[in-house]
């Protein structure tokens, strides 16, 4: 009878001791900062938690938050856009990204083990997606043609197609301007005409090499219908 009383008492003592150990265990909130988020749609995910990140009330400000549950010392974390997959080191699905933007964590570790660092601080940076601005140069035989899209970049030089004897053939040449970010305008113009020829720009959304990289252009994967037609100067 005495013994049977002592046994539960011992068990109780052990339970109290264990609880006091567990109560002191450090927990680590997973803090996140997102820079340059402009559009909704970003869902960050780790340790079975999803967090929908909305753009800041004031454009340009960072968004900071902590995941609802902190993790314990020794637990691992990996904060990714929900559904992002990496196969053999190659990104195969971007995950739940904001509209018109792609967010990544290029210079800061997004994964680790709680306790490795004093504090878990994840940093994501979002960039506005850019889309190709391309087309065709027709009839080019002279040298020195340069085209520009405003003043943002150095002009793009286009050389004529040459035959085996290095004579210009006038065959179509691909035109590749610098990619244009979503939501910005473009207006392609000839900065320098080729020797002996005059070139004019057509195509784009407005038919004269201009337009906006809008939803329709984004859906089409960019603007690829620029046409630069070169004829002999009169």
């Amino acid at each position, binding site marked *: 009878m005495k013994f049977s009383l002592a046994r539960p008492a011992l068990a109780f003592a052990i339970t109290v001791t264990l609880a006091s150990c567990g109560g002191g265990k450090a927990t680590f909130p997973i803090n996140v900062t997102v820079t340059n988020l402009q559009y909704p749609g970003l869902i960050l995910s780790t340790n079975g938690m999803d967090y929908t990140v909305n753009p800041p009330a004031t454009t340009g400000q960072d968004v900071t938050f902590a995941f609802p549950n902190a993790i314990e010392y020794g637990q691992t974390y990996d904060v990714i856009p929900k559904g992002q997959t990496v196969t053999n080191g190659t990104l195969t699905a971007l995950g739940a990204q904001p509209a018109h933007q792609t967010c990544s964590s290029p210079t800061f570790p997004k994964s680790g083990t709680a306790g490795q660092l004093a504090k878990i601080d994840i940093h994501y940076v979002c960039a506005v997606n850019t889309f190709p601005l391309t087309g065709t140069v027709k009839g080019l035989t002279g040298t020195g043609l340069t085209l*520009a899209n*405003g003043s943002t970049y150095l002009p793009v030089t286009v050389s004529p197609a040459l035959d085996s004897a290095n004579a210009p053939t006038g065959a179509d040449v691909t035109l590749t301007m610098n990619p244009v970010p979503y939501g910005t*305008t473009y207006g392609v113009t*000839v*900065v320098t005409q080729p020797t002996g020829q005059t070139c004019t720009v057509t195509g784009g959304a407005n038919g004269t090499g*201009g337009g906006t990289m809008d939803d329709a252009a984004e859906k089409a994967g960019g603007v690829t219908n620029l046409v630069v037609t070169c004829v002999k100067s009169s």
Partner: protein
Amino acid sequence: MKSSILRASAVSLACALVLSACGGGGGDLTLGGAVQNVTQDGLVLQNNGGDDTKVVYPYTSFQFGNRVSTDDQFNITVAHIPDNASECHVNNGKARANYYSIYQISVACTIKQHALTVEVTNSTGVGITIVNGADKKDVLAGVTSASVSMSPVNEGSPYGITVLSTPAGKTCTVSGGSNGNGTGTMGQVDTTVTVSCK
């Protein structure tokens, strides 16, 4: 006696080996760095007043021809700046060479900018949008004449003013600029382009 001589020579030999391993011999460090805001020829850098090095296309980095040794003092200065720059400065250009200090060097220039103004006459009554690439300015409906300030343009950079949306059934003509049709390369003075819609 013997043992102390042996010890001394062994120690000095060891010291000499360590020192030569540290770069006491021929230079094995390359001095160079990143370059920002350079768009044309003309930037010349010097190290300790010599070894002139031109920064060439695509103007993103430089590298001195002469290598330096660990602990050599280097002092990189700007000997000449591009014509379209107002100033160029060297960051972390003066130090003793080691594997840390030689990777901290960079050069940044400030390019002169000039105003690009568009004088608009628009008798169509319909608003128009004027763009210089990504730089977009609206002229509201009913405004018949306006002077529109576009974002300033770097000297030596291209520009091309176009009308994004010409009112239906109307014509817009762009003139002026160094090519006469609203396009050109920014020179050393402010530029005005004319847009006329009717």
